[in-house]
């Protein structure tokens, strides 16, 4: 496997409704920034990989076909990836594999969601015959498992609010973030409406329109490079007897494989920044444990000690994360791109000083798809 690197990143200004652009225009806003960042032109791109969450979200079957012109994919290999909410991460990994394998030299990875064209909560709660219609979107799905985590770990109630306040404050330093709330506090989060008890309004990701793009190359194109040290993906069924929804096996297995491939034995000491898919605040401590940054039941202590703040031992979501911007299909690739930006030193006001190794992480479905990568400033 030959080395591959992220050589350019781009994203849109995320917002609840980007009514000024078509889906094509939304994608191009991210693509044009990524290609300018990489200093490449269309003739430099060998293949395009598009990531998008379920088609019911925009009601467009196979959007990669009608977007081919906008993606610059005419006459080139064009592949669509779909692994629910983790799809942005899987898209990065698929694009990386096309370069690492030697099939292509430079690949453009793009992911998007235009949530304003539909209603994801509706699309995730279609009542099928013969069943009990108690499903209530992603929040309704994940809230019981958050409750299980709180019970199992005996975490104090304010941990979720701490994560939300931190991520929203970080988002205020990110010019592209949908939500910018510099004055948010733990108390104001705790005072917000309880939506899906135990998940409050301010502990919930927004619904965003947005896109993200990265250029992955076998050689640097403009000097800067985030070298891909490891990638991993794992999957498990949505439900089976004995399934651990708090600490899914697929996530544990993916993380183990990732750290091994990256040559990392102590993630908490060796990783300088982490962009972890946290759509509901409590998933920060849950995934810290699932990823092996802490022992089981200890993740919340890292959060509580302030160690996941920018300047802490492991800054988590310095970009503001999914809690600040959630164009679902793009959210995973945003995590991957933000990790790359940290090690390239291009993260601006939310840059973690001296970041040399960073994690990008995404999960999707009912915590059943996991995709992650480790990027570093040093060529392996």
């Amino acid at each position: 496997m030959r080395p591959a690197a992220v050589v350019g990143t781009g994203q849109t200004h995320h917002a609840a409704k980007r009514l000024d652009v078509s889906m094509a225009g939304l994608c191009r806003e991210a693509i044009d920034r990524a290609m300018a960042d990489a200093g490449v032109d269309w003739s430099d791109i060998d293949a395009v990989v598009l990531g998008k969450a379920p088609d019911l979200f925009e009601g467009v079957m196979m959007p990669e076909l009608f977007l081919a012109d906008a993606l610059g994919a005419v006459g080139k290999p064009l592949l669509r990836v779909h692994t629910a909410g983790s799809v942005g991460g899987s898209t990065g990994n698929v694009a990386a594999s096309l370069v690492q394998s030697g099939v292509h030299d430079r690949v453009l990875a793009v992911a998007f969601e235009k949530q304003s064209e539909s209603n994801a909560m509706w699309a995730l709660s279609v009542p099928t015959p013969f069943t009990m219609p108690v499903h209530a979107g992603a929040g309704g799905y994940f809230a019981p498992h958050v409750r299980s985590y709180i019970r199992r770990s005996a975490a104090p109630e304010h941990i979720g609010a701490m994560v939300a306040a931190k991520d929203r404050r970080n988002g205020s330093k990110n010019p592209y973030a949908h939500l910018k709330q510099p004055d948010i506090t733990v108390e104001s989060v705790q005072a917000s409406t309880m939506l899906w008890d135990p998940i409050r309004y301010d502990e919930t990701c927004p619904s965003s329109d947005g896109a993200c793009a990265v250029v992955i190359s076998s050689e640097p194109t403009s000097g800067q490079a985030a070298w891909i040290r490891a990638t991993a993906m794992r999957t498990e069924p949505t439900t089976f007897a004995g399934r651990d929804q708090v600490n899914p096996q697929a996530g544990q297995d993916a993380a183990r494989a990732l750290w091994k491939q990256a040559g990392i034995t102590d993630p908490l000491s060796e990783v300088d920044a982490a962009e972890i898919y946290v759509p509901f605040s409590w998933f920060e401590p849950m995934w810290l444990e699932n990823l092996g940054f802490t022992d089981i039941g200890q993740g919340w202590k890292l959060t509580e000690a302030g160690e996941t703040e920018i300047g802490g031992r492991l800054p988590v979501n310095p970009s503001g994360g999914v809690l600040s911007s959630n164009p679902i299909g793009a959210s995973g690739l945003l995590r991957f791109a933000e990790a790359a930006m940290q090690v390239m030193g291009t993260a601006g006001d939310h840059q973690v000083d001296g970041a040399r190794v960073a994690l990008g992480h995404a999960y999707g479905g009912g915590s059943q798809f996991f995709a992650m990568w480790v990027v570093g400033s040093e060529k392996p």
Partner: protein
Amino acid sequence: MTRPLSAPLDVGFDYTRSLGPTLGRFLSDLRRRRVTGIRGSDGRVHVPPLEYDPVTAERLHEFVDVAATGVVRGWSWIPEPLEGQPLDRPFAWALVQLDGADTSLLHAVDAGSPDQISTGARVRARWRGERVGAITDIECFELSDEPAEEPADADDVTMVTTPVNLHYTHSASPTEDPFLRGLMEGRLIAQRCPSCEKVYFPPRPACPTDGVPTTDQIELTDRGTITTFCVVNVPFLGQRIPPPYVSAYVLLDGADIPFLHLLLGVAPEDVRMGMRVEAVWKPREEWGPTMQNIDHFKPSGEPDAPFDSYSQHL
């Protein structure tokens, strides 16, 4: 074997499309009884206009007025129109190359019968009286050598609504079928994996862990334990139960996997993990092949189950 139970599943949503600068111009102009194309880098005029060039991928800017008349370049006869198609009588889907365009537009031609239409036939747009800024502002094309109606003034459009309606027949699996027929008699039928011996309720065609058919059928009682739950306070489109309500995972006694159901008969703040519950059935005359025969679960009054008894089912 009888056919498995099936029921209609209708999924519909009025999707909105923000058009952006190119399709926005095209649809605004259709509202004005004008057809607008765009010139590509190779000089070709694309109708409908493309936002990005298929050759260079660059954004295109040079709009070109084309006629509302043109030539049929290919066609297919539709003897029995379907729901949502432009005409409710037999018509032709046709590729129409408008005068001044280099590409063809797909639209309906109201040709009466297949022997009236031919490749090379001249057509003109039949404009709709009330135009909203949509491709259906052209009601269809008709066979004619004459010019189409003159343009008229209208405001710009930036959004369109595109309703999507899907009609499915949802069929139960052969394994689900006896479970559903059991529900019609008030019985809760589960199946056990012959390999790992886990009991699945509802039953599956195969054990997701071992991949073998779950053939051993067993009947469960309607009592169980709340493993975990959430209180749904948020209203949303398509919701069937008015909030607030408690959506709870119920682990029936003897089962190895919990399922989601509704919990009533207790204030949301008093619901606990480990709470013992029993089913409250709807009146027998309302029973059908559905879990909705159980109207809800309510606390049974038994002491809470110890955490260890359900901690492996979270």
